[in-house]
């Protein structure tokens, strides 16, 4: 198989080993593989040429398949992949927007982050049809984005989501001023996931080995982040169906988790914890014991509230069969992470691309019977909270074995030359993918980021079809996708 270079998560490869095919060969190769895209992006290749890189995920074997194609300066189009594999739709839109190479016959070739004034909304005609426009500024304290509902009375035929308001030019900034703090601020609700992905990329490029202790602290923090956000979102879902009790209780329970993060790192969201070379803060034995005590209370309170809430018939009538995305649809459009799991597709890069700890600590993927509605997404959160808290307990007790290891090893600025590295971290929403490339001088020349929301926004659009407009906030909250992670 010469069409692909096979690599692993966090493993550096030589740029010159990546096959460079013609676009037609690459297209054929992608179609014959039938695997999930996790990256599809361009890079200036000198003299007006563009090189397109594709990374596919082999979730069964834990492999990453990398290949590329070069477009010369006068090649400005190719036959799109989306018609064959729909999950490429958003990747091809992004590639077109960034490099002007048109995927021909793309069914939905609209702006992704810029040129919002040129966005053409899908238009429906008829006496009964009307549009509802929402945003960019929303009613709550949330990030900006524009939603356009095509409705018949109260029923949504279709929702179009126009984003890009959060665009801060992150990929460009990552080349100019890369730092842990910038990585943390790409998507401020997934601080640990983003900073870990960035740090792993840098450690890979700089050949830095971090201590076992640091790896475990990062892992524990990642699960704390997951638990905190999922509890908060359970509260937000409760709030959106006017179940005030749930909103209040989950809200205060989340506070316990993030205040523990504050004790670990000085920030409620774990900012300043992860660093290239390890972590900045050790967790003392006292802190471990205190954390374990707090987590017991958290687990108990979440359990209690969830059981009370789900016994309530008015709660269930709002959650069940609202905003359904079927397994087939989820798979076809390439949903990842939580949204995929809730629809019955168990994608989880923690288990699909495992590090050594997953085996050593006996962490196993547990099945979840999701049918893709709000209820499934709520129950999945409950399941993940319980699992994450159990994982943190195990990780912290393992941590005691590495008491004398350093948390941070020395870093330096020498990066490997002509290197290419992919780092995948399973944030609470799903896979956070960071990819970096260096040139012959060891300078960063491309930094690519893919947030799980990038795949999943279209899933939200499908979820609200044939639902009432008034159920949109509930559907939206049940996905809780990132605007800033998508817009970069």
């Amino acid at each position, binding site marked *: 198989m010469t069409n692909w270079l096979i690599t692993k998560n966090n493993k550096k490869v030589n740029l010159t080993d990546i096959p460079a095919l013609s676009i037609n060969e690459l297209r054929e190769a992608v179609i014959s593989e039938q695997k999930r895209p996790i990256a599809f992006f361009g890079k200036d290749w000198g003299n007006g040429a563009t090189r397109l890189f594709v990374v596919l995920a082999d979730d069964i074997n834990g492999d990453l398949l990398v290949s590329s194609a070069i477009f010369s300066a006068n090649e400005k189009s190719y036959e799109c992949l989306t018609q064959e594999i729909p999950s490429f739709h958003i990747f091809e839109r992004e590639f077109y927007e960034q490099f002007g190479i048109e995927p021909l016959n793309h069914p939905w070739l609209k702006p992704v*982050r*810029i040129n*919002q004034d040129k966005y053409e909304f899908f238009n429906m005609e008829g006496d009964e049809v009307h549009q509802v426009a929402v945003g*960019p*500024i929303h*009613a*709550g*304290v*949330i*990030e*900006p984005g524009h939603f356009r509902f095509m409705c018949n009375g109260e029923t949504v035929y279709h929702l179009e989501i126009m984003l*890009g*308001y*959060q*665009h*801060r*030019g992150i990929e*460009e*900034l990552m080349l*100019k*001023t890369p730092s*842990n*703090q*910038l990585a943390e*601020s*790409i*998507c*401020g*609700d997934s*601080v640990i996931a983003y900073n870990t992905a960035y740090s792993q990329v840098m450690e890979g490029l700089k050949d830095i080995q971090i201590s076992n202790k640091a790896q475990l602290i990062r892992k524990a923090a990642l699960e704390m982040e997951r638990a905190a956000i999922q509890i*908060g979102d359970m509260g937000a879902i409760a709030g959106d169906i006017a179940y005030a*009790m749930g909103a*209040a*209780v989950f*809200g*205060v329970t989340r*506070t316990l988790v993030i*205040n523990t993060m*504050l*004790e*670990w*790192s*000085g*920030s*409620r*969201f774990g*900012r*300043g914890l992860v660093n290239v070379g390890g972590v*900045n803060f050790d967790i003392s034995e006292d802190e471990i014991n205190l954390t374990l005590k707090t987590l017991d209370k958290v687990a108990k*309170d979440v359990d*209690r*509230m969830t*059981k*009370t809430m789900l*016994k*309530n018939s008015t709660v269930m009538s709002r959650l069940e069969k609202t905003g359904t995305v079927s397994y087939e649809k989820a798979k076809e459009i390439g949903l990842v992470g939580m949204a995929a799991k809730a629809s019955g597709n168990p994608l989880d890069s923690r288990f699909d691309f495992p590090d050594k700890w997953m085996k050593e600590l006996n962490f196993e993927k547990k099945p979840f019977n999701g049918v893709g509605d709000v209820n499934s997404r709520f129950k999945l959160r409950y399941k993940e909270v319980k699992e994450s808290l159990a994982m943190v307990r195990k990780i912290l007790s393992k941590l005691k074995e590495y008491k004398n290891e350093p948390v941070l090893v020395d870093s330096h600025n020498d990066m490997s030359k002509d290197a290419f590295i992919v780092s995948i971290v399973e944030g609470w929403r799903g896979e956070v993918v960071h990819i970096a490339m260096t040139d012959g001088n060891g300078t960063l020349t491309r930094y690519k980021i893919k947030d799980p929301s990038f795949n999943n926004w279209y899933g939200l659009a499908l979820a609200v079809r044939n639902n009432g407009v008034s159920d949109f906030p509930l559907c939206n909250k049940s996905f809780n996708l*990132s*605007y*800033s992670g998508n*817009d970069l």
Partner: protein
Amino acid sequence: MFDTLKSRIYQGQQFIKDIPNAPMREQFRGLPSLCNGKCSNCGKCLNVCPTGALKLNPLSIDMGKCTFCGACKNICESHAIDFTNFYKLASTDRNKLIITEGMTKEEYEKTAVEVRKEITSVFSRSLKLRQVSAAGCNGCEMELNACSNANFDMGRFGIDFVASPRHADGIVITGPISENMAYALENCYHAVPNPKIVILCGACAISGGVFQNSSKLNREFLEKYPIDLYIPGCPVHPLTFINAVLSYIKK
């Protein structure tokens, strides 16, 4: 229903009773404490600061830029830089956010927020705010949401976030203000009836923070309109925010 009642009783009262004097965990990085005499001028801190908040000769930290990451403290071998857990960081004057040697929390608290009679008389009983996230990363947004949860319960002071600028007395801006959000922010500002206030929340809003070198920002809004209150943080802690507003309207 009995389960719900039982849950209610089990949870008890969880709100923080005394917001202005609420204790803060010692690990929190708040007001910097600097010692010029110890500074060896090695400049290592300047290299690790992601936002250029530090200056030497004399040593100073601009809280309007600072992300409170603690990298400068960690690298400083002569222990000239420290962060206290003092969380009342807001000021009505941009220049007061620049902390130099000898600034104590008592002095900062006394001088940072200037109380104006017209503000107190109009807003002290009720202040409704419209929040605009202008490319905020969701860090400050989550913390502002937390201000209204059962722990912090900002609503008890008559301070709330409202859904429409028409109902608001002012706007709270988070994020570095992207080009794509500039017009919406300005529209929102004009939709708020007079008299109105503008609050900048977080390092990004105040100075661009880690995004200050981005070519995709448009921060003209800040030059055109007066800013009433600067609230530092990355993200802003709920106690920092609530106390900032309380001291500004002199509740």
